[in-house]
């Protein structure tokens, strides 16, 4: 598989403070890559290195196979966490300026801006100043400016902070569309819940170190612990039924609804082989639910961090 970005042993210190310690990452082409970690973990420093705003002290970063160089800037789009626009400059002029700084010609930039302004319903704002705009509108313009030069790699640092839910959805759909068109996307956030639906790959950064990375589905598989949620419709008393089960299996918790004759319980299996337990259960009751519990990114994150801390 081709990688849009490869970081090898990247280290960055500010004085006595280590912002990144020996980080190695491989970001595949045409995927959404989640860069996760709490505030202050070093995500933004890493992103600034990719954008050549600051430089690593040690290590190497390859963009499309070659070491990062100034000409790559035209192929990267970056929406920083701390973002804004010139308050007293007109919207259109400002967008043109920022697009030209990314290397677009004036006419090309104008054409694409018109397309995006129509697409996101900001047509009439060309000659208004930013200070006259609502915050959501300004955020949309920032998004447009980020993607306008059709970069190969898009980097979003906390993209949804500051967006209202409706605009956040619009932007999310646009990001997914861009991915479909072949763009690689890095998505940096400390809010794990937004990761699950978007990212195919993730890396966890904690206290300047990478503690986990890989394909999200693989990670989840690795973090699965063979716990299943089961729902049964039974005729006999729930408690006695559970007691008979406990002789053979490890039951973590259970609850019985007498009126509905519904028994729900979680069960810990020794492996992910379910045939035995299913055969056993279906002999005695009607199974209406049997699902594996999959750890959320948040759970994985907390678990990994805890493991890491315990190792020390």
């Amino acid at each position, binding site marked *: 598989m081709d990688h849009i970005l490869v970081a090898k042993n990247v280290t960055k210190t*500010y*004085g006595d403070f280590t912002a990144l310690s020996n980080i190695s990452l491989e970001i595949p082409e045409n995927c959404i890559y989640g860069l996760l970690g709490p505030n202050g973990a070093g995500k933004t420093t890493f992103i*600034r290195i990719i*954008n*050549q*705003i*600051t430089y690593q002290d040690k290590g190497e970063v390859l963009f499309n196979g070659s070491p990062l160089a*100034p000409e790559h*800037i035209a192929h*990267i789009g*970056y*929406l*920083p966490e*701390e*973002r*804004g*626009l*010139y*308050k*007293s*400059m007109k919207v259109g002029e400002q967008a043109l*300026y*920022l697009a*030209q*700084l*990314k290397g677009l010609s004036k006419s090309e930039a104008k054409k694409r801006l018109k397309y995006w302004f129509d697409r996101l319903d900001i047509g009439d704002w060309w000659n208004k100043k930013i200070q006259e705009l609502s915050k959501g509108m300004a955020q949309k313009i*920032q998004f447009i*400016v980020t993607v306008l030069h059709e970069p190969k790699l898009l980097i979003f640092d906390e993209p949804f902070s500051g967006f209202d839910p409706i605009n956040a959805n619009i932007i999310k759909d646009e990001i997914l569309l861009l991915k479909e068109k072949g763009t690689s996307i890095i998505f940096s956030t400390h809010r794990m819940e937004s990761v699950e639906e978007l990212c195919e790959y993730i890396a966890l950064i904690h206290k300047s170190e990478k503690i986990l990375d890989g394909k999200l589905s693989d990670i989840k598989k690795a973090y699965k612990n063979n716990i299943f949620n089961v729902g049964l419709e039974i005729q006999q008393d729930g408690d006695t039924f559970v007691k008979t089960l406990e002789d053979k299996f490890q039951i973590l918790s259970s609850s019985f609804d007498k009126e509905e004759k519904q028994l729900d319980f979680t069960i810990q299996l020794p492996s992910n082989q379910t045939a035995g337990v299913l055969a056993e259960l279906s002999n005695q009751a009607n199974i209406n639910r049997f699902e594996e519990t999959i750890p959320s990114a948040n759970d994985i994150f907390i678990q990994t961090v805890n493991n890491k801390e315990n190792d020390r």
Partner: protein
Amino acid sequence: MTGKLWLIIRREYLAKVRNKSFIIMTILSPLLIVGMIVLIAYLTKINDSEKRVISVLNESGFFDEQFKTSESMSYVHFKGLSLQEAKDSTSSLGYYGLLHLPKGADLEQVSKSAYLFTKDNPNTNVTQRLEGIFQKKLRQKRLENLGVSQGQFSDIEASFEINLATFDGEKSVKGINEIKAFIGGGFGYAIMMFIIIYGGFVMRSVIEEKTSRIIEVIISSVKPFQLMLGKIIGTSLAGITQFTIWIISASLLLFLVSLFLGIDLAAIATENPMVPGSMNGMGQFSAPPSTEMMLYAKEILNIPWFLLISSFLVYFILGYFIYSSIYAAIGAAVDNETDTQQFIFPIILPLMLAIYVGFFSVFSNPHGPIAVGFSLFPLTSPIVMLMRLPGGIGEGGVPLWQLLLSITLLIGTFFGIVWLAAKIYRVGILMYGKRPTYKELFKWLRY
């Protein structure tokens, strides 16, 4: 690369010249300046035209011809009144005062017993004038007693001015050193004003980019140094535009005003009471003989204008870049303008020092040790060296090695300061929320 720099310069320039307060300042300043000049001229005129009337009660028989009405004083001679009557009529007529010369045996006695009666304490101008009249008459009388005739007396009184010449034998004129230093001082002062005004603009523009949080978007496209450079150049171009408009419109306005109102502007320049002591020399050539006028004109033409203007450009560009990059670094280090004070003072200090040292030290001795030292020291040299340069280079002027050393030091400092400022700028623009100390700024240099 240069394309981006050009884009930044263009944006900074347009952002500046389209700014409402900038436009207002551009239009209003010449009006204000011309208005001030006209006002000063008008007030000076009123002030001059006020005549003081002194009534004179002369019972002595001396001083009959001495109290003659002049441009600023007029005298009314009372005859046959008693002192009390004279006092009453003086005050009822609203005159400034009454000069009483009682009967006396001789001039000395009369003078000693003469009195000036006024309502309040008299103006020193008035008393000095009156005293002058007494003194002159007394001196004449005393000399007469020693056998000096009246004709001889006026010969003695004739004023004397020393003739001046350079070693080359060329005739020179008084006050020319001051004029030269003044012209150089004008250039130096322009540099200082430009640095303070437009350096401040650069700083505020950096702060604006920081507070509006656009800075990270921009520097993901261009290098911070490019942005800083573009900002400084764009702002200075806007400044040059403004200065040019000011100079052209102010001189046009002054010309029109003096044409319509008939105010003699040259007169104000020489009568301006605010000029420092050394300017008194200039006051004397308000009506010099025409041959002297020619000498002045020759001396002014003799000023090495080409040298002066070309070194002005060199010193202006280097000095402005040094200072405005410091301003940019300060803007980057802080979050808002109120935090800038502690950092700005150390920058203004050498500028002020340069101006004061220039006016006090260079005017009196353009080649003294203080003048030489400050014209070599890079943070003051743009101003002080320009004050020395109208004297020319080489013999009688600035030694060539001093000029070259000064420019070399300035260029070295230019690279050093811009490098340091760019480092602070690069780190500072991404730091939010706290006011850094000098110690922290020093740390940033190692990032």
